[in-house]
């Protein structure tokens, strides 16, 4: 594969830069630059649908990056880019879900091992509401444990703890069916049933995309507090720049059609509630920098 500097990678020589609460790396780090164990590693990954046919479409092209596995902590990685830039493709390749999996070329490694298919070590929260309609909140939250054969009493006990942790009311909500819940509550259920399995990697595909702005801010704060105790590496796909800068320790910026990794940024972690932090001028400076960058990328196409 093409490991050398290619004209398709526009960021090779950019200088390191401080922007607001962010630090722009000179280039997207390659796996060999990170000496530690790596939670996720992409090596020259390309995904082309209908390869060789007239309607062939390349979603992502030659993507190489690595995220280290910070011991006892994990990193919050946001993947940012315009619609259709292959953000979800990257996520679903990590999850091992078809039809994105397997990649057309290149390697996807999770904790050093190639991805063969989906598993509970890589929990995923989707944008669409995916609560099982025929299961109550408690039964939805404990679905993964049920599949692992955990007896009902134990799994319900743990399930109630998690219902409480994601800010739902155990007494009133545990026996409700998804159709009785609001969008925000459904996503709380989705987060609970993923985190209850203690995944090492949590994949979130625009989980708050369908929520109203206020609920969205609340959910961001909830996610930050839950993640602090989850000790997992989070991959969070979004097209909201504020959301990415607020939540992320690290932000990847993609260009579109085909998706390429353009920039890697380190960002200060959230130290205040979303509403307060997002008002900070330094926060805004970072947001504007990324917005201009994406705008330029779109124009130069």
């Amino acid at each position: 594969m093409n490991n050398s500097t290619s004209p398709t990678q526009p960021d090779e020589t950019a200088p390191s830069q401080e922007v607001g609460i962010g630090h722009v790396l000179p280039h997207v780090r390659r796996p060999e630059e990170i000496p530690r164990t790596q939670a996720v590693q992409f090596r020259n990954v390309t995904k082309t649908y209908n390869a060789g046919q007239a309607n062939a479409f390349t979603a992502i092209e030659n993507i190489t990056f690595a995220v280290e596995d910070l011991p006892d902590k994990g990193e919050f990685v946001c993947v940012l880019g315009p619609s259709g830039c292959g953000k979800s493709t990257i996520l679903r390749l990590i999850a091992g879900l078809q039809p994105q999996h397997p990649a057309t070329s290149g390697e996807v490694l999770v904790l050093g091992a190639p991805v063969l298919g989906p598993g509970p070590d890589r929990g995923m929260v989707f944008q669409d509401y995916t609560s099982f309609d025929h299961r109550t909140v408690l039964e939805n939250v404990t679905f993964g444990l049920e599949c692992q054969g955990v007896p009902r009493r134990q799994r319900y006990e743990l399930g109630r703890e998690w219902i409480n942790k994601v800010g739902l009311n155990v007494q009133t909500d545990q026996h409700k069916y998804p159709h009785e819940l609001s969008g925000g509550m459904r996503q709380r259920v989705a987060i609970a049933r993923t985190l209850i399995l203690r995944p090492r990697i949590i994949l979130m595909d625009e989980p708050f995309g369908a929520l109203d702005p206020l609920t969205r801010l609340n959910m961001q704060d909830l996610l930050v507090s839950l993640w602090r105790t989850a000790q997992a590496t989070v991959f969070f796909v979004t097209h909201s720049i504020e959301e990415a800068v607020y939540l992320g320790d690290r932000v990847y910026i993609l260009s579109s059609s085909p998706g390429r990794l353009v920039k890697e940024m380190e960002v200060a972690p959230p130290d205040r509630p979303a509403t307060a932090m997002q008002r900070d001028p330094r926060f805004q400076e970072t947001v504007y920098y990324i917005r201009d960058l994406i705008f330029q990328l779109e124009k130069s196409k």
Partner: protein
Amino acid sequence: MADKQPADPASPAPQVPPAAGVDVAPRGRDNQGTWFSIRQPTQPWQAVLLGIVCIVFCFGLWWLVTAGEAEQRILTSDKVPSPQETFGTLHDLWFNRALMRNIIVTLQRVVLGFGLAIVIGVPVGILAGCFTRFAAFLSPLIIFGRNIPLAALIPLTIFIFGIGELRTVMFIFIACVAFVVADAAQSILDVDTRYIDTAYTLGAHRRHVILKVLTPLAMPAIFNSLRLLFGLAFGYIMLAELFVVGGEDGGLGYLISVSQRRGPREHIYLIILAIPLVALAIDRLLYHIQRSLFPYRYGGPGYLNNGLKWLLHRWDDIKVAVLPSHLPAWLTAERLTNGNASSDTKPTDTPPGA
């Protein structure tokens, strides 16, 4: 839209004379809220009343065309008997021809034949909906089963299954099973892929996806199609019963056939009136079962759903008692080290499925 109200609601809005040339006619057409507005909601009592009006109208028409002495009638009595003549034979039909017993015989056959079609057709359909290659393998049988002329099957069922009860039961089974399979498969296919993806990322195996996700999510749609197909089966049983082969067949179709040959003809009209009543009763029964089974779709308390869950929980308990418990290592470790299993310790073992 309403006009902006002035700040003080008590004071009337100042009457500003409209400028010359401004159209002050009411906006829009008032085509809502009248009897013939499109999709205007109807009160339940109105719906019932209108249905009764329709029935009264039909009987009135019937009475009108058969009123008077035999010669004055619009339709002569050898074609259509009058309502009085028809209902006059109800006593005879009920007692001498045992209407109720024959209704039960017919129902028994439909329930057995259709039940067999469900028991075989639904699981096969679910598998066909899950596995595209199995569906491709079955598709010739489905096309054949859905398109054979059913009347032509009757002689064949007599050759194969004899003239007893088995004949009618198997006829209903053959008539319905292809539809049941096709509908069940389609219901499974209609479940969104995102549920499968979700289940897999939560560690479900293939059997869990089929049994715990796809089948229960498709079940409301499957039940709905079964309810419609039961109406179809009830229609087919008449066909099989009209074709009288033995002496003591029984059933509503047999009763029609006997009344046709030996009279009185009024009985045929009575039976034709009785069939929709039976069908309505069954449909209502199935509707209430459906509501009770799927409260997450139709609301309500869902007693049958609760009963089903209770049974599944008992099955769970038996499994736990019989099989050795195998908690995931990370969960046991967490419970032991932490007592109340709060989430602020790192799992000491690798997570499940890693």
